[in-house]
């Protein structure tokens, strides 16, 4: 799994200091990011995901990097053996190696999407910022990859949140770096946009051999798209593993301390407050959604339950037949639930 190591940190401690007191968020991390890999970085709010991302990007100084064990970039990455990488100086991004998509809002909303994406080429341009032919090619490719061709002459204030996020990703792509770090790129977006962005990032890691780290709260999406999960633990470490392993060994439950969510079934836990079991017969989506409606309303589904509800499919129409005497049938779940409530 994964290709060459593109970014690695040894004994990295992350946090804030005011010179006297230290607020340590992560301690002695040993982490690698590899090519062809989409890593989702998860953890509860406030545990320091954003700070770690900014530290890795060289935008925030790491704490307590002893000279003996500095964070280093592998040789192939541009770092020199024995020389601490610019990470340790804090204000030292490596613009041709790492690009970022942050949660910072852009206040200059009067710029066009094209101008925004062009910023990605800045590390390669001199003070005169004159684009060369290959710069333009890279920009076009980034715009194409993110499917924002129709937006390039729009102003940022005209964009929806999803479109703006795509433009920010296009800007990072135009920077043409082996590593891309994204901080909650799917926050505030609707399901469609969230799925589109995660799929895009996954495709990017595959086709462009990039190492991509995404901090996200989208548990379901992360479990389905990530190659690897970084799980921020409560003892200032990072647990890594493939999503399924972390689910099955209970790491997610331990860290998130889910309140009413059963990760192994992937569903919200409903309390069976009605104390009434019903028997449900049927198949397919119709069965699953009926079950969902019943459980959400506090009924228990059980073979020995009474009455028996049968989901019948007739020509594209769904009917629910309830085994009371006499048999009644319903054409919507709403009316079925009303009846059941009376029975309970």
């Amino acid at each position, binding site marked *: 799994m994964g290709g060459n190591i593109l970014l690695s940190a040894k004994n990295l401690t992350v946090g804030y200091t005011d010179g006297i007191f230290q607020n340590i968020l992560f301690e002695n991390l040993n982490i690698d990011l590899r090519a062809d890999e989409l890593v989702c970085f998860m953890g509860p709010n406030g545990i320091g995901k954003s700070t770690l991302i*900014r530290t890795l*990007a*060289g*935008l925030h100084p790491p704490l307590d990097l002893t000279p003996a064990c500095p964070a280093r970039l592998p040789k192939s990455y541009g770092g020199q053996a024995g020389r601490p990488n610019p990470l340790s100086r804090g*204000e030292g*991004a490596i*613009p*041709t190696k*790492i*690009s*970022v998509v*942050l949660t*910072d*809002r*852009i*206040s*200059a*909303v*009067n*710029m066009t999407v094209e*101008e925004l994406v062009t*910023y*990605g080429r*800045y*590390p390669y*341009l*001199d*003070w*005169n*910022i004159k684009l060369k032919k290959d710069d333009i090619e890279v920009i076009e490719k980034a715009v194409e990859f993110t499917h924002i061709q129709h937006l390039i002459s729009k102003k940022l*204030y005209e964009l929806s949140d999803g479109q703006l996020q795509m433009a920010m990703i296009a800007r990072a792509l135009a*920077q043409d770096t082996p590593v891309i770090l994204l901080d909650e790129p799917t926050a505030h977006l609707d399901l469609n946009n969230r799925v589109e962005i995660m799929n895009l990032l996954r495709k990017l890691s595959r086709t462009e051999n990039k190492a991509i780290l995404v901090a996200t709260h989208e548990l379901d999406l992360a479990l389905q798209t990530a190659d690897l999960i970084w799980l921020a633990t409560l003892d200032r470490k990072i647990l890594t593993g493939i999503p399924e392993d972390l689910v099955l060994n209970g790491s997610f439950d331990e860290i998130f301390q889910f309140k009413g969510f059963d990760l192994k079934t992937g569903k919200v836990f409903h309390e069976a407050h009605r104390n009434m079991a019903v028997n449900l017969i049927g198949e397919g989506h119709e069965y699953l959604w009926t079950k969902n409606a019943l459980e959400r309303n506090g009924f228990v589904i059980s073979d020995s339950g009474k009455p028996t509800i049968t989901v019948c499919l007739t020509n594209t129409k769904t009917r629910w037949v309830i085994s009371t005497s006499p048999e009644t049938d319903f054409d919507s779940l709403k009316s079925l639930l009303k009846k059941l409530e009376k029975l309970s």
Partner: protein
Amino acid sequence: MIKILKQYWYFVLPVLLVILFLVNISLGSVRIPLSETLKVLSGITPQETIWTDIIIDFRLTKAFTCILAGGALALGGLLMQTLFRNPLAGPDVLGLSSGASLAVAIIVMTGGTGAALFSHSFTLALAASVGCTFIFLLVLAIAHRVRDNISLLIIGLMIGAATSSIVSVLQFISRAEDQQYYLVWTFGSLGSLNWGEIQILGVAVFIGIIISIISIKSLNAWLLGDNYATSLGIPLKKSRMLIIIGTSILTGSVTAFCGPIAFVGLAVPHLTRLLIDTTNHKTLIPAVVICGGVIMLFCDILTRMPGSDFVLPINAITALIGAPVVIWVILRSKKIRM
């Protein structure tokens, strides 16, 4: 009209500058025909030899001062608005003009001897420069310590507030005629510079423009915010220092020679952005400088009430024209955008 202006601004704005320049130097308390004015400009002796002196030593110096001061203040405003990503920032947010005001207030109002000490306008210019430089060094030292620009903006405003309160105290304890002198200085003046002083101002403005030009890339990157700018390889502290130094030279030199001129630095960048729809400083910098010159020449023309010897203070006009314009800009575009 606006459309043509938008498309050919690089042609229209300089032409406007030349026209206003000619109008500016042909107006004044002494009536000189335009043909004679042009004669003087091309080095031919006009009908009355005194006209040569009037035009060369009074009107030309004033017109050049307008262009230099207008361009410098407008550029300073653009730099500050970009650096602080705040549309309400102006060249005076660093507290420089307050520093100059304080120094001048100290000279004028505590000297006690009044007119004798500062009969020379150069003394005032010197005091203002010293005040600017002092505040500038203070801001520089603070900028070195604070990481983010918003803190710097607030600190600049606080320095301004503190210095103006000292000025108030000085005003309270000083004599009426000294207060009057100080008040006249704060009105701003574009006509008191001789050719030697204009040369000094010109060099300062030139340096300011050069610093802005080499900062084009970082200015553009600042628009995305500190984190993105750093991630694009912009050396944060270095470029911020450079922009602060540039603004200080521009604002400080103008304030020293012309007094604190309000509004131009705040409003001209917005007017320019209204005209030229871009956020790229490669275009904005030359446009803002020329636009600043145009506006200042225009304001200066308005200070001279036609047909009278009466000249209004420049600050009254800049604010009178500027405030409605800024309000109009906001109402028209609903929101000031950078």
